[in-house]
């Protein structure tokens, strides 16, 4: 219950909305970007960064008030936060808690690393698309050129971290 207590100390509880928990420390902004939240939408958004976590050592938390982020839309968060949970809050209570699975398909999220992929050709109206490669490791394959992108590259592209 330690984590919960700390949360309450740092940011007030929200009445209704979404809490994304168990984000690796430093990736809360990447999570917001993946959700497409810029701050201009007018939602009240709270980021809690670098709080203690038993599971992750340090973690980030994102709270969005007044909005229920649906699971399908939130799946991409798992690309940078594989342990993340999506919590739905109603009347100050967590009414559902889901672990996010990375999506089977991505459109426009990643850039293909192959310089001669058609999606890299300048000025062509083509959006990069990827399918998830089966298996334990997080890997995506370009629909067009077949190039496989692994976890390090995904983190680099989406969270700006060089692993």
């Amino acid at each position, binding site marked *: 219950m330690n984590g919960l207590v700390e949360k309450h100390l740092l940011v007030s509880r929200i009445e209704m909305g979404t809490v994304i928990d168990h984000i690796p420390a430093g990736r809360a902004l990447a999570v917001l970007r993946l959700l497409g939240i810029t701050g201009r939408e007018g939602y009240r958004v709270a980021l809690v960064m670098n709080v203690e976590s038993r599971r992750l050592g340090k973690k980030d938390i994102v709270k969005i008030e007044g909005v229920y982020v649906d699971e399908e839309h939130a799946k991409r968060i798992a690309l940078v936060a594989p342990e993340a949970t999506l919590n739905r809050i109603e009347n100050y209570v967590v009414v559902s808690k889901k672990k996010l699975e990375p999506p089977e398909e991505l459109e426009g999220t990643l850039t293909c690393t*192959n310089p*001669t*992929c*058609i*999606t*890299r*050709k300048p*000025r*062509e*109206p*083509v959006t990069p698309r990827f399918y998830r*490669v*089966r298996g334990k490791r997080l890997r995506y*394959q*370009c*629909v*067009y*050129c*077949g*190039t*496989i992108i692994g976890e390090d590259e995904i983190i680099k592209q989406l969270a700006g971290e060089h692993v």
Partner: protein
Amino acid sequence: MHGSWKGRDVISILDFSLDDLEELYNRADKYLEKIRAGTPLRTLEGLVISLAFFEPSTRTRMSFETAAKRLGASVIGFTAAAGTSLEKGESYADTIRMLDGYSDLIVLRHKYEGAARFAAEIAEHPVVNGGDGKQHHPTQAFIDLYTIRKLKQRLEGLNIGVLGDLRYGRAANSFILGTALYRTNTLYLISPSQLRMRDETRIILEDLGVRFYETESLEDVVSDLDVLYVTRIQKERFPDPSEYEKVKGSYRVTRRLLETRAKPDLIVMHPLPRVGEISYDVDDTRYQAYFKQAYYGVPVRMAVLSLVFGRER
């Protein structure tokens, strides 16, 4: 399963089932006979086929053109000369839209991987991939499989060697995938270590559960082989030219090697053109299959075109 070809794009050999392929071989058999008999055909009369070669090609383009004309279709198109750029003006997507408006089917070659799949998304008419970068060359793979079937009477349970640049060569890549669809084959992938197959190909082989060995030595495995598919190793692939000089001799197929080591019924294939990978003294041996393979290019491409148009006569 008949009729599943009609209206389809031909982008990768992996898009086709063994039934689809069987239908293709049977159709090619038929056209082979017609060509030999000199029977004029009007199967595709009234249709226009675009041959859009954004990358220079002689062999593949002429083979498609011959196939189209033998079936009575008209052909339009262009071939980019080496070094010129068609890309300066309009976008690739716009060029595809134009060709799609002019013709009933587009055959294309492009140096960018995925160019054919992208074109297929844009075009209303079917797109046939005549080679996209280092990725796919499905009609070459059809021809290669057909050749094995003709000369070996089967496509299953064979020991198949693939020699050369398995990393950047699209013919080799498509051939590996095509032979792996027949899961009882065993593949011997022979290349210098820096030119081994790419991860995406390896994953597919593992998924298909086909047996494969990777080796740098042709001599070590040649005696096991029923089929040896030879491709070119390009000097430019080696960061250090002396590395290339070191390995190039060990990937040369000679009459002496075959006569001392190979099974008597081994067939040696090559998508051509060759530049020294197979010495000329192999040409008049019983191992040589590459000229037949080249000859089958037209009937197999006739089969592809007629199936995609859903016309038979």
